[in-house]
Structures are given as C-alpha cells and as structure tokens.
C-alpha cells in the first residue's frame, strides 16, 4: 500500500479543517511521525502500489520522500512552538493546508505516470498558496498572487510538455504505458523530435516551479512573505519535487541517447540561475529574500550537475539533499530572528552573536554550510560537480560556476557578518529570547548534514547511486 503515504496526511488534513486547534496541533506532529515511519518503511520494503499504472517506487523518489518526511517532522515540531510564540490567524486552515501540502508532495515523489506527476505538482502549488497568505498582509497577497499565477502558467507548459512526451510514443509507433518507467524502457524507439520538444517544455514548466532563472520571479517573494516554517518547507522540499519532474524527464532523454541535447540546456539554465542569484544576493537588503536567492543558486547548481551528467549527477543529488537540510534550518532560524527583532531588514538586525547566541550558532553554521564549506555535505556535492565539469571539458561553465560561487559567498558573508557582529544599537533590547523548541530542529538538521557528509548508511548510499546511475551517474 504505497498510496497510504499520501492518503493519510490527505485525510487528516481534510479533517483538520473541522477540529479544534489543540487537537490539530497534536495531529500535526503525530502525522509527521507517522509519515516518517511510513516513508522509512517504504524505503526498506519498497511495497507494491495499489495502482501500479500511476504510482511506483523509484530511487530518486524514495530519497526525496525521506527528506520530505524528516523535514516535515522537524518543521512540525518547530511549528508547534512557533504557533504559540506568534499567533496565526485561522490556524485550522493553516494546519489543514500544511498537511495537504505534505500529502501532495509525497504524491509527487511516488508518481510514475507523467500526468499524475503533473497533477501532484500542480496540487502542491495550490496547497501551499494559502500557506503563503497566512499573515494576510498586502505584500503576502502580492506574493501569493505571483506564486499562484506564475507557477500555474509555468506548470501549464509542463502539461504541454507531458502531452508532447506521450506524442513521442505515438509518433515512434511504440506501445507502452505513459509512465516514466515505461518511457525509459522504450526510450530508444521514441520519436526524438517530439521527445526534445517535450523536454524543453517540461524543463521550462517544472523549472518555473523549481525556481530556475529567468522564471524564478515568484520565488523570493513567496519565500520571504510566507511564515518561516512554510518558507523552510517551500525551499527545502517543494523545489525538490519540481526538480524530480526534470530529473525523471532527463532520465528518459538519457535512455533515448539524447543527453547531448538535454545536457547543455540544463547547464545553461543552471548557470543563468547561479549568475542571477549572484547579482541579486550582492545588493539584498532582506535576509529572507537573501536566503531565497541562495535557493535559486543551489537549484542552478543542481541543474548544472544534472546537465553535466555522469558523476556530477551524483553530486547534484547530494547537493539536493544537503540543500534541503541546510536551507530549511536557515529559514527556521531566520524565523526566530524575525520573531525576536521584528524586522526583515539586514541592517536593522545587529549583534546577533551577543544578543542571541544560540540562534547565532544555528544561523552562522547554516551560512557556512550553504556556502559550501566542509564539514557540511554541500561541499562534497559542489566539489563533485566541479571536478566532473572540468573533466568533461566544460571549462567556461566551470569558470562561471566558480566565479559566481565566490560572488555569492561574498554577498552572503557581507550580510551575515553584519547581522552577527555589527555592534548593536543600544536602543535595541540586549537579549533576544530564545526558545529551545525553536532551536533544536535546526541543530538536528545541521548535524544531519554533517553526519551524512562523513558517514552514509550503505543502503542510503546504494539508493543514491541507483538514482544517479539512471542519468549516467554512478562510479
């Protein structure tokens, strides 16, 4: 019963709209735990699906599912305290949609049918839109509007691409299920023209959702306006789900021997994203937006890794996992900072190191991690991608890559240093209250990133390699 994993949160999410809020809060954490348990069970057993035409276990899907579960559990614990600290209007709706969001994302990871994946990803947009509008401010309204419209239109392109993929079946005169596994199996006999067209549309479509420049305009707005737990979910998992669509399509392209076509496109989109993020991070005045641009950068890195293929694909998946862990921890901490200081502006937040030492450690650790320093896992992923790029002869791409990473590091460091060590205005309160329930999820996430860098369970490693090998990765 593979479908349990998204049916359970779905049903609970619907019921949450009608339950009182004390039960809701409990349900949220409980669902997080059950979901984590279920996804570990799926990873270990890989059970058969009830509707095998629509859903199936894939290595990349299981990986994403594990990340989603872990993050959601930690974020639900964080949310529990967060809700107590800052009142959220219409809490029922917030928790209900949070659970629906979890359900749709889980569905996206397990979909095998092309159209079902599309349905799931569009559903994630819809389930998360009310979450972004939680605080009912004018700017939140604007962010939600942009998010829904841009993503819906973008994803409509992906639907067109999905249809074109199925056309490649007809044009190639083969008969197979319109599922990713089915298409990979018959990839050689698919009509390459339609396949290419389908890939481009899917890349543009899901790329919009994933935050690849130049379709990224919704991302900084949505991430900065949403409440922090939601920003963490958006950045940590939602982008991964959209990436999954691109990854699975790349798999078909690779199996059809068209990676020469799909690779460069991915690399170009990835590099544009990295460069775009670099230019915007440099003159960023709000720290949540800064983190959002850093997400765009990381998605660009992942796209470049996928485009280069081979060993770099393995690096891309490592980046994907670690970015989820680190970025969500950063967003959670930024939520604490926002709660404590009451401002989103970088220049108004000063002297974090003295005023909120525990948050400072989490924030600074996250900054080190996201910039790609060891001992955090992102370092590993970036190095792998870079080395493979150089080996494969993508010298210009590698040059742009390194240069942009330096610029981004400079931009991030400038802001983070200012926030951490700039002498605080004496008028500001000496200490920002730090709640332990709002801290240990971040520490756990960062610790997970460090541990996964040095030691990975053999079975996890195996799943990773399996996933990467489908687009020519592995060793």
């Amino acid at each position, binding site marked *: 019963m593979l479908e349990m994993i998204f049916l359970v949160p779905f049903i609970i999410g619907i019921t949450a709209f009608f339950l009182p809020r004390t039960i809701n809060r409990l349900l949220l954490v409980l669902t997080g735990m059950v979901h984590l348990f279920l996804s570990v069970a799926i990873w270990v057993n890989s059970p058969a699906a009830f509707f095998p035409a*629509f859903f199936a276990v894939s290595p990349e899907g299981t990986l994403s599912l594990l990340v989603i579960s872990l993050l959601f559990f930690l974020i639900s614990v964080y949310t529990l305290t967060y809700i107590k600290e800052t009142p959220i209007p219409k809490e029922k709706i917030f928790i209900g949609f949070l659970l629906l969001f979890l359900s749709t994302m889980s569905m996206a990871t397990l979909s095998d049918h092309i159209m079902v994946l599309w349905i799931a990803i569009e559903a994630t947009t819809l389930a998360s*839109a009310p979450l972004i509008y939680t605080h009912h401010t004018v700017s939140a*309204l604007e962010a939600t509007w942009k998010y*829904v*419209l841009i993503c819906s239109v973008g994803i409509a392109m992906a*639907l067109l691409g999905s249809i074109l993929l199925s056309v490649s079946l007809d044009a190639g005169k083969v008969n197979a299920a319109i599922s990713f596994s089915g298409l990979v199996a018959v990839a050689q006999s698919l009509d390459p023209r339609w396949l290419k067209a389908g890939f481009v549309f899917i890349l543009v479509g899901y790329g919009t959702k994933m935050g690849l420049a130049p379709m990224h305009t919704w991302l900084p707005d949505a991430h900065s306006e949403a409440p922090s737990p939601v920003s963490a979910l958006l950045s940590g998992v939602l982008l991964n789900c959209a990436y999954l669509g691109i990854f699975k399509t790349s798999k078909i392209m690779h199996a059809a021997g068209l990676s020469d076509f799909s690779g460069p496109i991915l690399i170009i989109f990835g590099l544009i994203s990295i460069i775009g993020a670099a230019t915007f991070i440099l003159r960023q005045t709000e720290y949540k937006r800064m983190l959002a641009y850093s997400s765009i950068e990381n998605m660009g890195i992942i796209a470049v890794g996928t485009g280069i293929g081979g060993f770099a694909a393995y690096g891309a998946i490592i980046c994907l996992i670690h970015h989820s862990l680190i970025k969500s921890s950063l967003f959670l901490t930024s939520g604490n900072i926002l709660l404590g200081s009451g401002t989103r502006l970088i220049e108004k937040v000063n002297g974090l190191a003295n005023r909120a030492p525990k948050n400072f450690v989490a924030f600074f650790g996250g900054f080190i991690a996201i910039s790609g320093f060891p001992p955090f896992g992102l370092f590993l992923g970036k190095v792998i991608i870079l080395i493979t790029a150089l080996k494969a002869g993508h010298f210009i791409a590698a040059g742009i890559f390194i240069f942009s990473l330096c610029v981004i590091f400079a931009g991030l460091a400038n802001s983070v240093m200012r926030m951490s060590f700039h002498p605080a205005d004496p008028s500001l309160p000496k200490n920002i209250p730090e709640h332990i329930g709002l801290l240990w999820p971040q520490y756990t996430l960062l610790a997970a990133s460090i541990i996964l860098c040095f030691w990975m369970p053999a079975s996890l490693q195996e799943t990773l390699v399996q996933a990467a090998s489908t687009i020519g990765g592995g060793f």
Partner: protein
Amino acid sequence: MIHPVDTMLALALLSILFSFGSSRLPSLIKVVGFQGIVVCIVPLFLGHGLSPESVVFSIAALCIRGILIPVCIYVAIRKAAITREVKPIVGFHASIFFGLILMVGATMASHRFDVAADHISRLFLPTAISLLGAGMFLLMARRNAIAMVLGYMVLENGIYLVGCAFSQRVSHITEFGILLDILAGVMIMAVILRNMKTTFNDLDTDRLRTLKE
C-alpha cells in the same frame, strides 16, 4: 467543411478574436466560458470509440470549464465596487490585429507537423496553437487580474485541444485529475482576487508592484 468539428473549432477561433476585443470583464468571462464549452464538445465528434465514460467525462469537463469556472470568477467580481474595465496594456485594435496575425502564424506553423487529427479537421492544430498564443497574450497584455486568470484558462483550453489533437492515450482518470487541479487553481485565484478586491478595492495588478528584487 461538413464536419461538425470544423464548426466547433471555427467558433473557438472566433472566440479568441472576441476575447481580444472585449473591453468589459463580464463579456470577457462569457467569451472564455463559451470557448470552454466549445473546446469540450470537440472530443465528442472525434469519432474514435464513443464510450459512455468518455461522454460522461466530456460532460463533466464541459460543466467545469464552461460553467463552473466562469461562474466562479464571476462571483469573485460580483458586487462590483471594482472597475469593470480590462485595462489593456496593448490596445484593443492592436490586440485584434495580433489575434489575426496569430491565427495566420498558427496556420503556417501547423503545416510543419503531421498530426493524427489532421484527417478529421485541418483546423485542429491551428486552433490549438492560436489558443496557446492567445492565453499567453492575455496574460501579458492585460493589467487586470481577472483578465489574467482568464488568459490562463484560455491557455489551458489550448493545451486540452493539443491533447485531443495528438493523443488518444491519456486515460480519463488522469484527465479528470488535471481538470480538478485547474478548477481548484482557478478557485484559489478567485479567492485571492476577492482578497485583492477587499484590500485594494481594485484589481489592477499595477498595485502589486511593492515586492522587488
């Protein structure tokens, strides 16, 4: 020109011109609703295996695209304290000319493909491509938020036609899922529109320019 599909598609094409030319929101909503109905009727005439379930699906699709969604949007702008003008960025005359050029372009582009549905109607692909272009155009060339939502609907209608034209493989369950997604999407947009109306007393997207960089 005996096949009813041709008539349907011609009407869909005509609705593009009308949607470009209409300056008032209610009329624009009606045109897009009409277009949804026409587009949903087309598969019924395609003639390959008219099973009961496909008829039921087509009727459900018709109800959603042609009735439910327009009504939903209409409810969102009802009790209009808002201006009912579409607020074009590109003027109406230019829009209509663009529509005509779009159709010519779509016709020329469609000659480059060989499509399964071509033997049923030569208009199939030109209509689908024109609808895609028209949706994009409405999204870009109108400042009013509702007009943008309607542009999105036109785009979806076009994709639906592309699906009909090319491939008969897609199962009804997934198509229905897609339809539900679109419906939910438009409903959420309608809710946002309501909120926008109460916040700004207007639906001009120019007011949504505070978030930058």
